[in-house]
């Protein structure tokens, strides 16, 4: 139990919009069971409205669960208000106090706990050094850039040495370059400090970059929980496959099933997909997914590969890669990404060419819908 | 939930105060309208006589409508005078608009009583205007006509209200998206046409807000009529004051006040439908 920094047990959160009309209730979080291991960089990933921010606020204590229980470091939090919980939050809009300078902002939590003045000074100095704002103590928030404000917010939260740090899409307001730099900084700080980070974002690339574990959420439910590699290579369902990275989805009918593999009929071609934990019956419709960079275009199907025939629709050159949009015989489109200047046996194609889209069997995944 | 408790704690004290010193007195006034007298045994007798008297007293009615007319005149004139001011500030004053608006408002916040008093001095028969005109030879003897008349009441109150009426118009005009005017010009409108078709209609909620903001309180005016109104300038508010302070007929006075209160509430209701309350609020915040 105490290996988890945070645990949600059967937590549901309903928002009823006045007047008691049941049909207007919004289930932001549905019977969630989640254990967040200690010392990890854990991310809640999903589109807007999926319930990730609500989950964060439930942990922080700004919302109370409609049912279920939340534990932090093994202790139940139902009766504990947010200002007493051992968590701190970095808000999306930073929420720095405009009437206090940076040092007093960072010291706020310490002042509340009546930490002695010199101790406060020392801790504030430490925190500001951690976020590389060592001599900004006397500045006012309005004098800082967005990136600097965000780091002050981080320092203000970390200085209290919480058991869990909650971050609510903190990098959303920054421009691309700064965001990418901050992502690495946050990751390093988490490794350095060792505190459990619970991070909320809708940006899947960000999640993949920073996280030790990711929970993909949609509509109040966790669809898959795993480390970035697993989520990327083995998405459990269509939503996760589609949300994380780019995916092709190809439909077919089950032709035959064996222990090791399943044969799918796509129009008049047969494709073998390695058996997964998906239960299918003969004749049933099924979808498999494959990443664009795992596909290749060839004139003739090589040995030990799977292939489908198609016609090249578009050729898009983007410097590092060439993207081919190929229409299969079934009418579906797939995207194939080929790295430029990589190996000599890469063939070039143009619009209108008849090709075989090929891939290695291990790179395709059968999906549960 | 915690939230509700905090909300209640915050709203509680102001609500209580408003109830005890605003709503409760109004309720008591309603009760008083049925009493036979203020003290003694008459205090506890309930009767509809006051209402009967009120409804049959043509003098009261006449004064009620006369006051309404005076207030209406004041509000209309104030709005007409205030509109060009607000327009100038928003469309022609550029960056100075807020400073200039402040300049306009500051004297308006000085004591109402003193400003009326000042006008009384200026308009009076031994006052400034008369002595000026006399010394210039424009008139032969001091004219008492400038003061103690209905016109004096109207002039004085217009003077008081114009800056306040200008505020919501200023706010409403300021909110108009300049792109709309550019679009109108682009589509062929001459400046005055653009004004009539775009600016004026969009500013009407602000105009309505300012109009009612002046109209409703002046219905009950009694101070200005007392100071500069003379006999012909008395308004409904003076009647009420008279009932309470001189005739000591509080029940009757209550009935009269209630009649005005009903009118006020009706007008407020119309105001919330017609005008933008946010304009009024926005205006006061400027």
């Amino acid at each position, binding site marked *: 139990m105490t290996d988890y920094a945070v645990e949600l047990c059967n937590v549901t959160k309903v928002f009823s919009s006045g007047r008691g009309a049941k049909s207007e209730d919004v289930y932001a979080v549905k019977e969630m069971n989640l254990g967040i291991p200690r010392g990890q960089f854990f991310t809640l990933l999903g589109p807007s409205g999926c319930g990730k921010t609500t989950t964060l606020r439930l942990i922080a204590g700004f919302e109370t669960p409609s049912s279920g229980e939340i534990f932090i470091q093994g202790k139940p939090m139902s009766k504990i208000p947010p200002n007493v919980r051992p968590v701190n939050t970095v808000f999306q809009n930073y929420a720095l106090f405009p009437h206090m300078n940076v040092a007093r902002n960072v010291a706020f939590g310490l002042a509340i706990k009546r930490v002695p003045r010199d101790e406060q000074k020392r801790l504030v100095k430490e925190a500001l050094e951690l976020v590389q704002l060592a001599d900004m103590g006397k500045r006012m928030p309005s004098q800082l850039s967005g990136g600097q404000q965000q780091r002050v917010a981080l320092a203000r939260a970390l200085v209290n040495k919480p058991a869990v740090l909650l971050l609510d899409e903190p990098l959303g307001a920054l421009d691309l370059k700064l965001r990418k730099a901050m992502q690495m900084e946050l990751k390093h700080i988490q490794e350095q400090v060792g505190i459990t980070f619970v991070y909320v974002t809708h940006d899947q690339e960000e999640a993949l970059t920073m996280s030790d574990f990711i929970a993909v959420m949609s509509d109040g439910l966790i669809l898959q929980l795993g480390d970035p590699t697993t989520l990327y290579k083995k998405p459990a369902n269509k939503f996760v496959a589609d949300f994380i990275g780019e995916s092709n989805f190809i439909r077919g009918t089950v032709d035959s099933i064996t222990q090791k593999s399943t044969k799918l009929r796509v129009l008049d071609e047969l494709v073998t997909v390695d058996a997964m934990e998906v239960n299918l019956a003969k004749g049933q419709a099924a979808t498999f997914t494959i990443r664009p960079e795992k596909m290749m275009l060839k004139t003739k199907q090589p040995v030990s590969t799977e292939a489908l025939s198609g016609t090249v629709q578009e050729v898009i050159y983007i410097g590092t890669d060439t993207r081919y949009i190929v229409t299969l015989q079934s009418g579906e489109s797939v995207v194939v990404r080929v790295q430029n200047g990589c190996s000599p046996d890469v063939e070039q194609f143009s619009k209108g060419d008849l090709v075989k889209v090929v891939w290695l069997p291990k790179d395709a995944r059968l999906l549960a819908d | 939930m915690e939230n509700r408790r905090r909300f209640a704690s915050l709203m509680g004290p102001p609500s209580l105060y408003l109830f005890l010193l605003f709503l409760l007195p109004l309720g008591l006034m309603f009760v008083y309208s049925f009493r036979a007298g203020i003290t003694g045994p008459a205090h506890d007798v309930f009767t509809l006589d006051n209402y009967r008297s009120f409804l049959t007293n043509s003098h009261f009615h006449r004064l009620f409508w006369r006051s309404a007319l005076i207030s209406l005149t004041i509000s209309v004139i104030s709005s007409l005078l205030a509109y060009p001011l607000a327009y100038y500030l928003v469309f022609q004053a550029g960056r100075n608009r807020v400073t200039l608006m402040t300049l*306009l408002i500051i004297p308006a916040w000085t004591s109402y009583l003193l400003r009326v008093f000042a006008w009384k001095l200026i308009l009076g028969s031994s006052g400034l205007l008369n002595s000026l005109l006399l010394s210039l030879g424009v008139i032969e003897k001091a004219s008492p006509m400038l003061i103690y008349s209905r016109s004096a009441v109207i002039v004085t109150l217009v003077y008081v209200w114009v*800056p306040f009426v200008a505020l919501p118009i200023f706010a409403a005009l300021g909110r108009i998206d300049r792109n709309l005017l550019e679009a109108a010009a682009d589509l062929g409108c001459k400046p005055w046409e653009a004004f009539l078709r775009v600016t004026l209609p969009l500013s009407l909620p602000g105009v309505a807000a300012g109009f009612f903001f002046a109209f*409703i309180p002046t219905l009950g005016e009694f101070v200005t009529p007392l100071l500069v109104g003379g006999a012909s300038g008395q308004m409904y508010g003076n009647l009420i004051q008279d009932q309470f302070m001189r005739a000591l007929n509080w029940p009757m006075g209550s009935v009269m006040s209630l009649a005005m209160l009903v009118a006020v509430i009706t007008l407020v209701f119309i*105001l919330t439908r017609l005008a933008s309350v946010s304009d009024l609020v926005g205006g006061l915040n400027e």
Partner: protein
Amino acid sequence: MNKHRIFSPGSIYFLLVCVLLYLPILLLIIFSFNDSTRLVFPLKGFTLQWYGKLYENRELLKALGNSLMIGFGSSLIATILGTMGAIAIVRFKLPGRSVFLAVSALPLVIPYVIFGVSLLILINEVGMPPSAFAAGLAHVIISIPYALLIISSRLVGFPDNLEEAAMDLGASYWGALLKVTIPICSPALLAAFLLCFTISFDEYAIASFIVGTDATLPVYLFSQLRFPTRLPMVVALAAVLMTVTMAVMLFTEWLRRVGQSPAKKG
């Protein structure tokens, strides 16, 4: 684009109106120094005697004292209640908000005679004698809408999760209000206080009903208006009051703009 001519019809009109607005005040100030008991041109000579007479007038000083006290008291209460109401309205989206807002804003448009009359009835029913104190209680009601508006205007200007951030860092809700919300609102609080003070200090209509013999300054002033010989002294008093009010209002306006987000300026 409008041409920024200094003397366009609009600016001339504006100037004219401004002159008319300031004229009575200026005239009062000028005549307060005039060595004559009649307010006519030409001016007779410079004197400070009327100001001197103000000091000696005990009734006036007593009325002034009353006005200062109830001004201070009613503004304090109105500002506090207005702040509580403003926080409730701006930060909480719960039912009852609009009713509260409607009722607290209503005094803005209700004729003062109705306040005077209904409060007179109230103090009679509860057995309270007419006094300046009663007027002070009434002044809170007419001031609350202004305090509410000024404070809520300030509150919407900064992010609404600062209280949450403070609580996240360990403050209780009320601690968050005290340490974060109130300090940020302080210019607006002062502005509201000063505005309410001005309103109470100058208020005549309601006071005339319920002060009885315990005059406030406007009531005292009014009572002097029918004595021609007292006129110059009244003029001197008027000059002082109006000048002070204008200075206070200028300061209040400046306060309201301090700390307002840049988007709102100009």
